[in-house]
């Protein structure tokens, strides 16, 4: 009986390993390429393993290009945009989860509809709007657009979380001496932490990875973001694969760290939100 219980698990394990290999292969290839000496990167036939490991490409990326500026800009814009989206979405989602008011359904559907519009469709209006408002080529402009972009999805995600917190807990807190807002901050928010972290990671990933908006609205070197930085290693005279891969690996570091720190919450967060329905 034990054996028959285990057999399907080996199958699952095999599928998981294959899936991991499939997902990890480009990253492994990228890391190994970044660690190769420059001559080996373009050698033919290609070798997966470098003949010797070197950090030369990383050094060049960090000292001979503007990549550190892009990296700092991306950290700043992603950090602030994630935080502002979360602050706005948390309050909006709580309001939508707890109160009934005229037009609530339309508002929720409207939010959903806006997140269905592809980014490229509103790129030109965004460009014009940012010029007219003086927000073109500013971090403020980028933060506002990214925040607005993130809010609908976060509101939908967090609303489910707040609905799953029993209303009696807030009522008990209000009887215990809290105002409604204090009950929200003291009791509800700590309970919705998995959802908030899951939402924060989703928002962060979107901003960190976005090329289109950043490329259009930030145009001077001191305002460019990482995706543009990676793109800049592809030029008319060729692609510097070693440096491109090194920059890619550097750009992965914050995301990987965030995932490692928050993966437990993320899985729990996405599951709980899904189950609530």
């Amino acid at each position, binding site marked *: 009986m034990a054996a028959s219980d285990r057999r399907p698990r080996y199958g699952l394990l095999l599928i998981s390993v294959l899936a991991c290999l499939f997902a990890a292969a480009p990253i492994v290839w990228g890391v190994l390429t970044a660690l190769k000496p420059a001559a080996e990167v373009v050698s033919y036939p290609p070798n997966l393993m470098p003949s010797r490991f070197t950090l030369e490409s990383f050094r060049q990326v960090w000292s001979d290009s503007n990549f550190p500026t892009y990296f700092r800009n991306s950290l700043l814009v992603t950090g602030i945009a994630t935080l502002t989206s979360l602050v706005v979405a948390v309050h909006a989602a709580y309001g939508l989860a707890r109160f009934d008011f005229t037009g609530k359904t339309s508002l929720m559907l409207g939010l959903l509809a806006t997140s269905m519009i592809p980014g490229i469709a509103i790129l030109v209006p965004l460009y014009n709007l940012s010029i007219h408002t003086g927000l073109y080529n500013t971090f403020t402009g980028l933060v506002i657009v990214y925040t607005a972009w993130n809010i609908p999805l976060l509101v939908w995600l967090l609303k489910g979380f707040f609905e799953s917190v*029993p209303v*009696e*807990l807030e*009522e*008990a*807190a*209000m*009887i*215990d*001496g*809290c*105002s409604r807002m*204090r009950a929200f901050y003291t*009791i509800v928010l*700590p*309970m919705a932490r998995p959802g908030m972290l899951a939402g924060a990671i989703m928002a962060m990933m979107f901003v960190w990875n976005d090329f289109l908006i950043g490329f259009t609205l930030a145009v001077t070197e001191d305002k460019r973001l990482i995706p543009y930085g990676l793109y800049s290693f592809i030029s008319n005279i060729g692609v510097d694969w070693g440096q491109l891969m090194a920059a890619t690996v550097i750009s992965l570091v914050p995301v990987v760290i965030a995932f490692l720190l928050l993966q437990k919450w993320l899985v729990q967060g996405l599951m709980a939100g899904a189950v609530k329905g």
Partner: protein
Amino acid sequence: MTALSLDRVRKSFRSLEVMHGVSFDIEDGAFVALVGPSGCGKSTLLRMIAGLETVTSGEIRIGERVVNDLPPKDRDISMVFQNYALYPHKTVAENMGFALKMRGVAATEIEAHVARAADILGLTPLLGRFPRELSGGQRQRVAMGRAIVRDPQVFLFDEPLSNLDAKLRVQMRGEIKALQRRLCTTTVYVTHDQIEAMTMADKIVVMRDGRVEQVGRPLDLYDRPDNLFVAGFIGSPAMNFVAGRIGADDAGSHVTTDDGVRLPLSRTPAPFVGHRVVWGVRPEHFALAAADPVAIPVTVTGVEPTGSETLVAVRVGAASMTVLLRDRTGLNVGDASRITVSPRLIHLFDEATGDRLDIPPLS
């Protein structure tokens, strides 16, 4: 002194009125149960007292203060919820001390208050645990601990025992009552279980459809229900009802059912003769009287012995009734027998209004 007073309290959700002018007073230190079937408005009323629902019109006073527009935190009440509503991310001690913390009480003082409440409720070994690590009964106790730690003017309980199994419910019933006696804090206790209300309360408020049907001491409601609803709601098994007409002849007064069965009645003044009534008798007030020729003839349709007593279902004409006998009987389904009842234990209600008919008996 009156601790809590409701004066013509109304509540509407948009155009729908759900509370139709509820008024009653609760004396200081009393244990009052709000009972009624699901949807009668008892929980809404409790939430209005707590400040969790607004009052459309009327007045709620706690002590001398009108609290209609005060937020829950300023009403000096504490509430135990049906699902306990313990903060899952806080320990038992933190749950119990939260209200004091919100009031800015010093940490050492909070600790002392929590320790005292924990000692009363036997929670001392559990103070460091989280709610998820507790059994249902322990959670219930923590919820009570959270309520008593603040020493409020009024305790509010919203069906606090309905999530517990039957045995624990009986045990907690006793504990809550003992705790209330010890603390002498005015308590409003909502339940749909009339046994809970009867055994725990000093006073019961019976509600139906957002109205108070009767307010009184438990045994007064049992002995003299104001109307058919209260008569049927209080007491288990429920009171038997048969509709009929008051009649009088040489043999005395009686109620004749629509299918001609004569039911006993005290001698009744002439003006009541011919009146349509509902004749009511509690199951435990019947006695078997197989040899009495003037007793009510019945056919046994069911026998349920429980050991200490026997529930006998009988048919009287077309009506069904329940008879509760303390003694064991040799009755079987299909047997014909007779039952009797003392006329002073008979309740009469006006058939049209459902109100109690107090007919002065002729001597």
